[in-house]
């Protein structure tokens, strides 16, 4: 029995503190120093790797574009549902007009159009067309207001009306400020004329920030007149103070007699798709700031009115592609084991001189560009290529039946096995090197044949190397891009090629991010499973 074990409490250090706390304090400094050593790398990785990837993956659920570009419409659409069986009412079209005018002026509508086009084709052109003509909506009201009082369509007078007195005074003292000082809405006026002041604020701020113009001298948007009409129609009793009060009162009196423009019809005139409830469902479905739509797409599902559903059989590609990627990666891994094991064995057992030469041969491919190696395979594998020529010359295959070795899965497997082989050989070699040849001798002295000695004694000890090589090769091949792209044709491409397509061609980054996130999850899952089955401690990359 030691002295400490007789105490029931924690072990104390010489100064009376608990030993654990003392130890932690002593180690903290060391840990801090260690952290400082790796800090530059950590920061580098964080900035160049973790943050961009995190951001990219975030795109797979992020969907702010609809609510950003069409904030009023999204809000107005909350009341509406597809089951109404018809396009939404005037309130929604009013909101759409206001949003579209701003979006068109800011040129954001095409971006939104492309985004929604991923979900429903045709929306892109719908938005582009609408963006061009939306400024005409409300023109009738502008003319009628002008007839009542030209002041009602005069930007200078309206600026006076809608701006805060502080803003007006500042601008009055220095005309420059009309551009630089952000336009502020007068609260009292906003209460009386909420839509009009909102529309005018958009107009003023756009002129200030994008065109860098004095809003007082800009051309007024028709949407402001539309908004003013809507305000006065809904609230004829609205009054404002100041010089414009008389004009507003006159306008309020005149509004009931105005020619009313049917906004839905105006949009339908631009494109009749605006009356199609399908279009509106898509907009409504993608109004929330976050969506699972990209992920559903990535696993061949789509959002429908009745919730997520499988796509039609002939439209399903991603699950098939994931499955093919896994299957081909496994084939490549297994071929690498079969081809790499004997080489690694030779490397570990040859005399140093010959082993070094062999090692150089193994490493040689690393010093050659990946593209060059892949292109070389193209030359070798094509139908009129070297391998086919030899096979035909040997008479194994007739000239008409030349083997199809490229632009299919075979080509991808052959080329990738070659390219990834060193990643199998090197970890395997480092493990085989540590297995003393005495084990084989011992097994043979105990009566085992060469094969039994290898299979029962040598091979089990090399499993950690196989594990390490397999993880490396499998994970590398599952995300491989260049080689399948060049030699894979259509049948031999991987999911990564599809991701690249969405990143660079279709520009559907959200879907690309969702596919990437799934790929990442699959790899992690496999890694976890491997850890559970084989144990990651059993993986040796060296020593």
């Amino acid at each position, binding site marked *: 029995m030691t002295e400490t074990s007789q105490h029931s409490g924690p072990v104390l250090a010489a100064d009376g503190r608990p030993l654990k706390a003392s130890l932690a304090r002593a180690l903290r400094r060391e840990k801090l120093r260690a952290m400082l050593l790796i800090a530059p790398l950590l920061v580098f990785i964080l900035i160049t790797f973790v943050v961009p990837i995190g951001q990219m993956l975030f795109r797979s659920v992020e969907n702010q574009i609809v609510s950003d570009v069409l904030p009023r419409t999204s809000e107005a659409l909350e009341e509406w549902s597809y089951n109404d069986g018809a396009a939404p009412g005037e309130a929604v079209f009013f909101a759409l007009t206001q949003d579209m005018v701003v979006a068109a002026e800011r040129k954001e509508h095409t971006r939104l159009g492309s985004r929604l086009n991923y979900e429903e084709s045709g929306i892109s052109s719908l938005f582009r067309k609408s963006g061009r003509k939306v400024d005409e909506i409300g023109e009738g009201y502008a003319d009628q207001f002008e007839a009542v009082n030209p002041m009602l369509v005069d930007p200078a007078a309206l600026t006076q009306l809608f701006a805060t007195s502080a803003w007006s005074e500042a601008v009055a003292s220095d005309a420059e400020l009309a551009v630089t000082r952000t336009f502020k809405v007068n609260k009292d006026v906003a209460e009386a004329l909420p839509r009009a002041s909102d529309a005018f604020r958009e107009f003023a701020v756009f002129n200030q920030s994008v065109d860098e113009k004095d809003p007082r001298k800009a051309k007024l948007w028709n949407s402001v007149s539309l908004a003013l009409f809507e305000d006065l129609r809904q609230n004829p009793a609205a009054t404002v103070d100041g010089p414009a009060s008389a004009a507003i009162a006159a306008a309020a009196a005149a509004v009931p007699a105005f020619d009313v423009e049917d906004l839905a019809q105006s949009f339908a005139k631009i494109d009749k798709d605006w009356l199609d409830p399908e279009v509106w469902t898509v907009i409504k479905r993608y109004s929330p700031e976050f969506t699972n739509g990209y992920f559903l797409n990535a696993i061949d599902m789509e959002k429908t009115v009745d919730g997520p559903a499988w796509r039609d059989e002939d439209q399903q590609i991603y699950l098939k592609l994931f499955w093919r990627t896994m299957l081909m990666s496994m084939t490549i891994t297994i071929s690498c084991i079969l081809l790499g094991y004997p080489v690694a064995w030779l490397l570990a057992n040859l005399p140093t001189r010959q082993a070094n030469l062999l090692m150089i041969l193994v490493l040689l491919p690393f010093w050659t560009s990946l593209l060059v190696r892949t292109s070389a395979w193209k030359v070798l594998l094509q139908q009129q290529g070297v391998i086919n020529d030899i096979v035909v010359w040997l008479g194994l295959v007739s000239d008409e039946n030349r083997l199809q070795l490229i632009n299919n899965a075979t080509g991808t497997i052959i080329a990738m096995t070659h390219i990834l082989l060193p990643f199998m050989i090197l970890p395997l070699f480092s493990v085989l090197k540590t297995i*003393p040849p*005495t*084990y084989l*001798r*011992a*097994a*043979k*002295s*105990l*009566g*085992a*044949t*060469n094969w*039994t*000695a290898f299979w*029962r*004694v040598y091979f*089990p*000890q090399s499993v950690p190397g196989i594990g390490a090589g397999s993880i490396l090769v499998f994970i590398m091949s599952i995300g491989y891009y260049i080689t399948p792209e060049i030699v894979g044709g259509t049948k031999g491409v991987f999911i990564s090629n599809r991701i690249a397509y969405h990143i660079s061609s279709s520009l559907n980054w959200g879907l690309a991010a969702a596919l990437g996130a799934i790929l990442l999850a699959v790899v992690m899952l496999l890694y976890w499973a491997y850890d559970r089955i084989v144990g990651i401690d059993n993986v040796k990359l060296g020593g």
Partner: protein
Amino acid sequence: MADGTSNNAFVEFERVQKSYDGEKLVVKDLNLSMPKGEFLTMLGPSGSGKTTCLMMLAGFETATHGEIKLDGVSINHIPPHKRGIGMVFQNYALFPHMTVAENLSFPLEVRKIGKAEREQKVMRALGMVQMQDFANRRPTQLSGGQQQRIALARALVFEPELVLMDEPLGALDKQLRETLQFEITNLAHQLGITVVYVTHDQTEALTMSDRVAVFDDGRIQQLAPPDELYEAPQNSFVAQFIGENNTLEGTLKEVKGNSCIVQLDNGDIIDAMPVNVGAVGERTKVSIRPERVEFDKTRLKADAHTLKAEVLEFIYMGDIFRTRLRVAGSEDFVIKSRNAPDQTRLTPGQQIEIGWMTEDCRALDA
């Protein structure tokens, strides 16, 4: 030299040579014959060819020339796994991915022995080395001595008649080594197996073996029982290699039957027994064991030649006294005397005269 072939030989090397590079012979003309049940040790400095001999016997190296016979049959072309020879390796070579019991079961499995019999044999072999309780451990969970015991049990479990051991105790500490030396010899004698044991530790060789083959330069320098090896070395290499030894160099002056006179390089004359000498006038090395040197004149023959010596160092070692002397110009002449009540303790600087019985001083090759 090694005795020739005998009819009851169990293991035989006949004119065996081995070369790895085709330029140098590692084993030169090896002739050796062992009867069944013998414990023979191959002793020698590293590079003397002893391990190569063992490996040729086990079948991991092929003889460049000559024949190796086991029980009268040439085994030159039999692969190692068919020779049925048990082997204990220097670093045990226990399979790390198998438990102790699986390790022992392995040689029985490859011999297609049934499960029940296998288990019984494994337990019996573990019993022989007192390791029954460790059957389910992994080799890495055992200490060096325990691993060595298991390696031994594994080499014995399939009941081979010949067991080879390649420096099996090299990695163990002294005390454990001594215990295991004892255990191995006992076991070998109990089971009546023939053992070829390779070591470079002469104490091990002397204490364990029936006969010791001293290797040097690819040849057996002497093959003899331990006592003969120690007391009657045939050449100066063996005399030097086995035990502590004083060597004096000189020229042969005169040979009279079982005795001769050697003139040392400083002119002194000593008596010696001619064992391995040439003609009169040739160079010789005389070898005297430290414990056979006398400095008490009363114990020597009256007419014996004596040498003047100066005490350089006196070391008290408990059971013995070790005294270093300057004799005939050499400063590392050592004598050992038993710590008895009447023993004289020499003091450094003291001038004494030393001598010996003629038969203890062997004149060997130069």
